[in-house]
């Protein structure tokens, strides 16, 4: 079941300088919900460039009929949501927090934003957006991140 889907545009690669050989941190902003995202991507197997647009979906299960994920990994030749995407990661939502008040005051002034943090086995994602767009996320939720370049 897809919780969130949006089109992002890569704004910057490795904002703090290149630290790892195979992993790049991308900074991206979404078009529809104006969300901001940091995401670690294994660029060795899935290269990404600055300015590239991609669609990203966050789903709680890969089963197309929406039956919840068991938590056990049982690959097979079943039909899955992943078929439509090129790059799929699995991880866990570990933190929900509010945006830093100091930065919010001098920023857009659109009010408080919420952040969700997901770890895909150490590859991290930080997604910042309006709380009303993120209310379906829960702590310790298992999430699948699916990306397809546009």
């Amino acid at each position: 079941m897809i919780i969130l889907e949006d089109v992002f545009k890569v704004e910057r690669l490795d904002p703090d300088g290149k630290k790892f050989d195979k992993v790049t941190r991308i900074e991206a902003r979404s078009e529809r919900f104006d969300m901001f995202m940091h995401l670690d991507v294994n660029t060795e197997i899935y290269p990404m460039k600055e300015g590239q647009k991609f669609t990203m979906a966050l789903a709680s299960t890969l089963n197309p009929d929406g039956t919840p994920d068991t938590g056990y990994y049982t690959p097979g030749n079943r039909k899955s949501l992943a078929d439509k995407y090129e790059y799929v990661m699995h991880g866990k939502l570990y933190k929900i927090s509010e945006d830093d008040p100091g930065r919010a005051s001098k920023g857009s002034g659109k009010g408080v934003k919420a952040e969700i943090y997901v770890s895909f086995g150490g590859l991290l994602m930080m997604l910042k957006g309006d709380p009303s767009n993120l209310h379906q996320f829960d702590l310790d939720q298992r999430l699948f991140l699916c990306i397809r370049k546009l």
Partner: protein
Amino acid sequence: MFCNIINPRDVLSLFERMSDEDCELLNIADRPEKFMITTIAVPPIAIRPSVMMEGSQSNENDITERLKRIIQVNASLQQELQDMKNMAAWDHLQAEVGLYINSDVRGVPYPFQVAKPLAGFIQRLKGKQGRFRGNLSGKRVEYTGRTVISPDPNLKITEVAIPIQMARILTYPERVNQYNIEKLRQCVRNGPYKYPGARMIRYPDGEMRLLMGSFRKRLADELGFGVIVDRHLEDGDVVLFNRQPSLHRMSIMCHRARVMPWRTLRFNESVCNPYNADFDGDEMNMHVPQTEEARAEALMLMGVQNNLCTPKNGEILVASTQDFLTSSFLITRKDIFYDRAAFSLICSYMGDGMDLIDLPTPAIIKPIELWTGKQIFSVLLRPNARMRVFVNLTLKEKNYSKPKNASERELETMCPNDGFVYFRNSELISGQLGKATLGNGNKDGLYSILLRDYNAHAAASCMNRLAKLSARWIGNHGFSIGIDDVQPDNDLNERKRETILNGYNSCDEKIELYNKGKLDLQPGCDAAQTLEAVITGILNQIRNETGQVCMKKLHWRNSPLIMSQCGSKGSPINISQMIACVGQQSVGGRRAPNGFIDRSLPHFPRQSKTPAAKGFVANSFYSGLTATEFFFHTMGGREGLVDTAVKTADTGYMSRRLIKALEDLSIHYDNTVRNASGCIVQFLYGDDGMDPALMEGKNGFPLNFDRLFMKVKATCPSREHKYLSPVEISALIEQKLPESESTPDGGLSDASKAFKKSVKAFLLEEHEKGSEIIMKFGEDATVENQETVIRVAQKIGGITEGQLRAFIDTCMSRYHLKRIEAGSAIGAIGAQSIGEPGTQMTLKTFHFAGVASMNVTLGVPRIKEIINGAKKILTPIITAELDRDDNVNIARMVKARIDKTVLGQIAKSIKTVMTSRLGSIVITLDMNRIEDSQLCIDANTVRESIMQTPKIKPKQLQINVLDVTKLEVVPLVDRGKLHFELHSLKNMLPNVIVKGIKTVERAVVNKGKEKYKDKEGKVKEREKYSLVVEGTGLQEVMGTEGVDGRKTKSNHIIEIQQTLGIEAARWCIIEEIQFIMSNHGMSIDIRHMMLLADLMTFRGEVLGITRFGIQKMDKSVLMLASFEKTSDHLFHASASGKADKIEGVSECIIMGVPMQLGTGILKVIQRDEKPELTYASDPIISAY
């Protein structure tokens, strides 16, 4: 004068006539004539064995030799008595008998000093090898082994591998029963030389058979239940393992045996730390307990599992080291990915492929399945869903990038270096693991948390798995260091040359300035000192800069870099010394001294102060040192070696004294700390009765609330549960933690009340933070999406009822589990906790007390001072707070009042005036100067001061005040002496103290900063002045006008006791020890220091931990005899007829009986007389 030496015989008859009443008056227990030796004790041959040499020669014992001589002298005395000659033999006999008892008795009248004197009885008793310390307090034992040690990561941390050769010699007496009879039969059949064998059989009737002969098979077949077989050591046997020096209780721990081939004792590297062992040829000892009781006690009390953390401060001690850290660091790198085969292989490493493992979902599913290295750690912590271990921790590793300024927010998990470790429900979320997570010496590492939240077994098995995993992983991955790891590239060389050149140039500038005398002086320093300080600063800067450059330039695969980053070995300084620049060599805390006239080496010009001439090594170990650099480097190296050699002896003796003083303190069932005779030292141990080994929080606080709260929130997921409203939260807190409650634990109620209060305060603060967030979101939300927004906000800051209840319950139940157990030998633990860090103290002996050039002693010398209760200390310093501490001028004024001012400093002139009639000295005061330094001095006060200086003999002087600034001193002597008298007066007068405190060396105004809250509650900083006074005289300083006596402190314990009393002295001891320890970067639980301070002060005066102080702590004779001055104590005890109740630790060891602490605190009470048993019907019934 007539002098009569009393004949010993006369003395004897005098003594014999002494009345019993007089004896009592003299405190003599027995008849005084027993002081005179009329007959000597001749011990039997067993006491003085003669050793047979080859042939017919025999080597006699010293005592025998002595006796031989006594008999000889006695014979000649008899001869002389018959001949009535000069009786020289009388004195001779006297001396011989004296030497028989004590061979270095003083005043032996004739030159009988041989090269090696024959030992007397006292020589047999005293000293380290003597009877008391060598044979009674410590004994030679059987069932022991010792050999070289080596590492084996495949062993569990609780195991030790024992060579088969050793296992064949060490035995354990196992009783035959129906379960082991077949095993023991086989052992008996194998005999003493074939491995799973046995050496001896003991029958219930007391008969013993050695299993040497060919009758073994028969014995094995006849083996019956109840027979004891001394079988070889086998897997799972309990052994004690030890490495000297045994500085703390973790130096001897209990392991399970694993009998293995080859010749070394082996154990898991994780256990190196408590033993302080490495494998460069160290040897270790092992002992085999011989009874089931001993085994049980050893396992429970000394087992590795039960000693994972140190009672010194509750930090974890058994933890991963070296390679384990390196490989964990490499595995958890962010860009390490494994495919299915590799990941499964690594997962099977950690449990020998025998574990049930749930393969996690790969982090990357498409385009190919890839697992990350971090997922291996998730598997390691929780291999399958049946394991109920949920680790939750957050931690900053060394490479965490802190926010550059305070206003920026912490990046936490999003740290670009991946330095923030976050475990959530046993899943590694982020962070590259290093020493902070897996290593020893911290309280919130992974193992500490496993140990606290789960149990020792969880922590131990995790260590076992990591050891196996990393040993095998790094074996495949490969990790080595080569010359190319330390080769600087051209760029680095260029940068280094530049930095060094710049540094040298600025040094030259400063030297030039110094030579011209234009150097700006630092406060409290002269020109030379300033120059040294400046140059040292510049040179240290050079090394740091080059070091930073080379750390930045190195590739991430550089082995030394990896090792220093993960904390397994080496520091950035070590790396930069290898690659870039070795840096300044120091000898005695200074640059290299001048060994030649005005220069360090003849290679340099005289008076040269350049970096190179004073021991700066610009080369790296890779580029190689020049001859002079090498020489300076050896100077520094030798100092280190000498220092360690000297220090070990010093600290060893200190530890011994501490132990002897504290050994018999233990906790009793009423929570008091008492010594062996039941005298109370503390009413409640550490003021809260907590066990220092179990403290989780910082500074010895029982719990780390932040961590626990996080864990509770993560492990009790909110899911569908309702979040509590603020009102409900307050109500629930009030209900769970009621203000007043009659606690069943009586004496502890005060401490537990305080703890409850802190729980409450923490919860309220968390609650406030949470509701603030919810408020903020609520304000921001529009009407239509209010509900969803609030829901998100509650996920961030809310708390459910289950979470709150779980948190409070765990806090309270854990708090009560952390109370110290009755019987704990807390004295010995405290002594070890203070003695052991002493051995690790580096040679840093001085420390600036805030002000330049005002040093305080630190390190081992200072600890010795405190513990000895020294009357005179090296650097006494008084810190005085001021009544008005915001004004420099006032501070200077007070300083002038304290500082010693002599007449010479304030006098414009001191002149001799000679007239024809009389001579005098006229003193003119320099009023400008006096006013400048704000002293209240005029001629009258000076007169008073002179009158009060006894050295000048003021009674023979006439002092006339001429006016306010002038006075005349006229000596009242006859004219002949006048000239000399005037001359000596003129010399002495300038040294008359006219103002200030005599005992004070000097006083310095110290500028500090203090944070305070202004009216709006904002934290602001302001300047704050205080005085630092070098010297003694606390009372006078406190009494000085302008000084706030209530806040004035001294570091001189005896002085504090004299001026402020014993309680102040106690607190001073605690603070001073803490100060030293924190300065050396060591943390020790304050409870140990409190106990030591209490022991030193509980008699009402400060007793040093020396032989004099320990004597006054009502210790028994045997304990004192086994400590120091053996013979004196024994003689004194026998004269005054002392009884020893054998209740202390030393006495019990000497007598070989169980002591009254630990498990020995309990005894079984049994009815003394037999109850009368009437084998008849009950009288009530029988009456009818």
